[in-house]
């Protein structure tokens, strides 16, 4: 299958890119591993319309990308495209504390995603914890689904959130609407969970709260691996792009969270620009400050990096504890000596953690992007 433009990721950024590219080009493919389009924020939302004329490939995981460009998928074989737009979104930053590996502890967006895929939470006591605007959205969604949200803990002190909201009054109605759905739910700022044990969350400050589920995420980590596999340059952990969303690799564009965590509006704007640029249309300039302000407002308290004890597991695939990692100086050394990051998630979860706790940066990405049946790797798609 050959297309002018292939878009990887059907979240807001990918959908906006598809709409923009579809205005000019007849042959646009939109590829996503989920059942429906919408990405994280619109996951499971009824009727997210894929722009007409765009071919949508749901439940299609891309496990390899090659120059030229070729996307290798689990379900549709190889797809070719002259231009590529990467809109691969973000995952959550999960930080270790004693008890974080016990079943019942989820990412915040993680529990939300599970609810959107059919998990009933009616009557369940849930605490939503961590950091970022996502927490309030998750808490509201959980409550709508019938959960008893027993509290939200946000690590940022209130004194930093208020000026941030004041600077972006456009986000206020949304914030108030969410808050209105959360009447009666305690919102503890400058607070975080320090332990989870037998259904009991202990918060910094000493309070304990009984829960069925703890949904805990500390912000977002960009999914840059697809771009890295193609050799796109990163800058400060994000995919570097020019004013037209083009990466350092000609013909590869990137939009949404991988170029800077900025949420829905930024993803939509990025996507529009990338779709327009990839099809030779004029491009609107970006309004960049929000990404920086968001990162500054929700900057993580360094005390969060001291919650794990020496026996607390950091690498969940291989069960490598923090104390085992301490003697090493860098990611690759620890990896070779302790198996940290060598399991099936390939450091997607523990890499960002060791970055926060130990100052390490994870090494280069290898194929496949996600674990795949060996059979798929042996089909030499380049030579028919």
């Amino acid at each position, binding site marked *: 299958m050959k297309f002018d433009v292939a878009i990887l990721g059907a979240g807001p950024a990918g959908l906006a890119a598809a709409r923009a590219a579809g205005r000019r080009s007849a042959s646009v493919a939109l590829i996503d591993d989920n059942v429906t389009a919408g990405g994280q924020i619109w996951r499971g939302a009824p009727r997210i319309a894929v722009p007409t004329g765009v071919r949508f490939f749901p439940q299609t995981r891309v496990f390899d990308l090659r120059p030229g460009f070729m996307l290798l998928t689990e379900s549709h074989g190889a797809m070719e495209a002259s231009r590529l737009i990467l809109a691969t979104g973000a995952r959550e930053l999960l930080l270790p504390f004693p008890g974080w590996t016990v079943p019942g502890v989820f990412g915040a967006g993680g529990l939300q995603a599970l609810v959107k895929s059919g998990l009933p939470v009616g009557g369940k006591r849930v605490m939503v914890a961590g950091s970022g605007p996502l927490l309030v959205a998750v808490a509201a969604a959980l409550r709508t689904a019938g959960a008893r949200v027993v509290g939200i803990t946000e690590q940022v002190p209130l004194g930093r959130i208020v000026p941030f909201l004041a600077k972006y009054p456009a986000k206020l109605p949304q914030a108030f609407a969410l808050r209105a759905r959360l009447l009666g739910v305690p919102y503890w700022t400058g607070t975080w969970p320090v332990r989870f044990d037998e259904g009991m969350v202990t918060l910094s400050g000493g309070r304990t709260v009984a829960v069925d589920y703890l949904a805990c995420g500390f912000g977002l980590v960009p999914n840059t691996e697809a771009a890295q596999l193609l050799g796109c340059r990163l800058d400060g952990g994000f995919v570097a792009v020019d004013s037209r969303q083009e990466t350092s690799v000609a013909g590869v564009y990137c939009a949404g969270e991988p170029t800077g965590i900025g949420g829905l509006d930024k993803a939509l704007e990025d996507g529009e620009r990338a779709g327009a640029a990839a099809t030779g249309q004029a491009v609107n300039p970006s309004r960049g400050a929000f990404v920086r302000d968001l990162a500054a407002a929700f900057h993580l308290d360094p005390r969060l990096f001291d919650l794990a004890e020496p026996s607390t597991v950091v690498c969940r695939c291989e069960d490598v504890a923090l104390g085992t990692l301490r003697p090493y100086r860098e990611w690759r050394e620890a990896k070779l*000596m302790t198996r940290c990051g060598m399991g*099936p998630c390939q450091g997607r979860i523990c890499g960002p953690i060791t970055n926060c706790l130990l100052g390490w940066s994870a090494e280069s990405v290898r194929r496949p992007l996600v674990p795949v049946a*060996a059979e798929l*790797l042996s089909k030499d798609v380049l030579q028919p």
Partner: protein
Amino acid sequence: MTPSPDVMIVGAGIVGAACAYELARAGARVEVIDSGLPGGGATAAGMGHLVVLDDNEAELALTKYSVGLWHSLAKELPAAAEFWGCGTVWVAADEVEMAGALAKLSVYRQNGLAAELLDERQLYEAEPNLRAGLAGGLLVNGDAMVYAPVATRFLLEQSKAKVTRAAVTSLDDLKAGAVVCATGAMAPALVPGLRVRPRKGYLAITDRYPGFARHPLVELGYLQSAHGDSNESVAFNVQPRPTGQLLIGSSRQYADSTASLLEPMLARAFAYMPGLRACSVIRTWTGFRASTPDKLPMIGRLRDRIYLATGHEGLGVTTSLGTAKILTAEILGYAPPIPAWPYRVERFDV
């Protein structure tokens, strides 16, 4: 000023580390330099199969001697080195290869190595996931496996050698009684004209499937792939890790071949173990073997105080310990533990 060491070893892969260990045990003051992480070169890319090969007498002598040394060292290795006396199963596809297995058996037996011929039924008892219709195989009992990066670290620690991180640009500039170049496939950068060529190999590793394979499995045609000089070759070589993961190899190609051998290598593996098709691969990578024209390593004096320990092709983890013994004897002026002339550097012109 600290006095210059007796021996400076360039390269902290398994070969350099083994040399440091052996020289230090013999009383020499040793230092090690590596531009990267100790054990982070070919040593991190390989499979760590400790295997006796019998393609020629010199190879047999060095691998047999070295595997014996590994068994002696095993008790001292830390658990993380994952030493596992798992043996090797050589797989015979047909009657012709079965005859090869029989010949191999007699060579191993003559050399005092335990080995058992497996008929068809015994082969499937040993390895139920091999495809139907194979003729049989040969189980070599004494072969083993080790996780080489941790073993490298252990050998370095035992040597108490100072390890410096720096890139060496000239061997002659190093101040030491003797300088050992153990930079693996990168040796020609320091010794121009050296007859060592990088030979790339792909590997894939799967998620955990405990019991899927019980021994390292190698097709009897492997030696042809390893020792032939064809520009591109693949062979069936699957190794279970103690974790239950499966390492899938092997491929060989020189720098002038740019094709990906991952696909044909996997296809070869499926031809022997169809169940591998469904196994989930979590990572693939490549590494470089240091290949000499006769596929034997270069161990010994290059000129005046400069020594070489490189060219170990696909056997450097296995032969590192034997290499270290031979080199130590030469540097310190002892008689070598096994005849060392087949590995001498001057068999090629530099």
